[in-house]
């Protein structure tokens, strides 16, 4: 297993484009911490972002994992090109001739996806812990380490997303086309059906149905955290709207994402096995 990771590491780390993207991904995550520095000073509106309460434990786990998940698009480029480059350089063929089995090839890529997701999860954990310890109003041990399931959801969300990217990379074999495919899928197979269902029937039905779709299921792992903020809540109440939502992580949602992950990885393997190189 270590050998497979080392193989993938050599390939990625010697590629300048991948290296830059990986590094900028983690740097961008650090920049999230920079949000805390923002002090809005706009006439009568004067407040410090950190004072709104987004850095309070355990809310910070929810907020940070939700926000950081958007950055995964950067790593998606790395994942897609990691497999598409093997096709365009024909090194996938040479790897197999040199004695790597097709199973090992898929496994080495999947392990890398796992490592990326894990590293990102650990990173967001450390950043949130750090920010929380500085700004949070509550610092009891039991409160700090409550609601950690958001981190698990974050991890699974990333694994699922990267597996999808990986599968599309194998399917399309060209990075640019694969990214285009993902985008078209996002719009055509997820957003449009959602809007259709929501307009024709109800928002609830649309939510329920799309939570089984690849992107939809990943999106539903972590609910939006904004309406949970007191500031927003009270603002909503003033206009007569009462927001009551379940913000917790739904285990069923995680299972759906894991199912997609298994499907994507299995399909990648089946495709590689069936194809003549």
């Amino acid at each position: 297993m270590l050998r497979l990771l080392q193989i993938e590491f050599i390939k990625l780390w010697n590629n300048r484009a991948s290296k830059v993207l990986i590094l900028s991904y983690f740097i961008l995550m650090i920049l999230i911490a920079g949000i805390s520095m923002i002090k809005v000073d706009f006439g009568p509106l004067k407040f410090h972002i950190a004072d709104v309460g987004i850095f309070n434990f355990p809310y910070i786990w929810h907020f940070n994992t939700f926000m950081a998940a958007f950055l995964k698009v950067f790593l998606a480029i790395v994942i897609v090109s990691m497999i598409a480059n093997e096709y365009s350089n024909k090194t996938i063929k040479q790897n197999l001739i040199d004695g790597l089995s097709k199973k090992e090839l898929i496994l080495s890529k999947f392990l890398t996806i796992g490592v990326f997701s894990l590293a990102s999860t650990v990173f967001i954990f450390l950043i949130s812990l750090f920010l929380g310890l500085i700004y949070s109003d509550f610092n009891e041990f039991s409160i700090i380490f409550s609601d950690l399931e958001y981190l698990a959801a974050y991890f699974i969300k990333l694994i699922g997303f990267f597996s999808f990217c990986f599968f599309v990379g194998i399917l399309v074999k060209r990075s640019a086309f694969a990214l285009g495919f993902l985008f078209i899928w996002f719009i055509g197979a997820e957003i449009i059906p959602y809007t259709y269902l929501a307009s024709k029937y109800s928002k609830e039905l649309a939510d329920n149905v799309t939570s089984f779709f690849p992107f939809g299921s990943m999106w539903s792992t972590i609910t939006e955290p904004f309406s949970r903020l007191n500031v927003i809540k009270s603002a909503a109440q003033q206009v007569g709207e009462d927001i009551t939502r379940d913000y917790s992580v739904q285990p069923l949602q995680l299972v759906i994402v894991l199912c997609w992950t298994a499907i994507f990885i299995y399909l990648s393997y089946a495709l590689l096995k069936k194809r003549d190189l």
Partner: protein
Amino acid sequence: MKTILKVQNLTKKYGYLTAVKDLSFTIEKGNVYGILGPNGSGKSTTLGIVLNVVNKTSGDFSWFDGSINTHQSLKRVGAIIERPNFYPYMTAVQNLKLVCKIKEVDESKIEEKLELVGLLDRKNSKFKTYSLGMKQRLAIASALLNDPEILILDEPTNGLDPQGIHQIREIIKIIAAQGTTILLASHLLDEVEKVCSHVVILRKGEKLYSGRVDEMIVSHGFFELKAENNEALLSFLKLNPNFSNVREESGLIIADLKAEINASELNKELYNNGIILSHLVKRKESLEEQFLELTKNQSN
């Protein structure tokens, strides 16, 4: 003798096209084999199948008597197919380190193999800066990293300049001299003739011949003759049942042999018949002529 590769009734179909048809042959340790055939005769497809990158339609193959599975076997094989495939953004050494990881061999051989192919002074240059000849030599170095039991080369001199071709052939000779089994696919007949002891000849996916190069005789050879009196010579040969296809080519009379006759016997007989020769050569067809003969016979 130890069997390295055994191919049995291998068939590969691409839709309606049959690229390899019911092919069987065996590779024994210690010989230098050539797979010979015109472009599109199924050489690369056959190699692709035994190297685990092309799926077979039917038939079977086994490495090392089937004692280990294909991908484990390939770690004991060194192979390059068509064009050298490496990571363009990595240096020669980085690429070879990766191959070592895949083949699970020690990295200590990298310098030695780079020296063998004459790339030691460029070892830290990126692969994309190499010329085609250098890329091909790097591929050979990479295939040798595990000191393979068999080295498989598919058209190794394709697209190279004369100097590059010469370098590759010299390297192949050195490797063959070290006792490594070699399987060389080529459409260049003299290349196969120069290096190989055994040959498998393919045409449209079918095997026409497999065996030793020197036993690949399709006829008993032919005589090239010239005499003072060519007319008499011609009529003598045409009447003799041991000769066929007697013809005149650029002043020489050529007669194919149907049975084994040695040159002095023929000379004596002609002399007794009052025909004095000024030119007498007994020859066998070159590999190229034999190859053309074989492929022609099959197409009729």
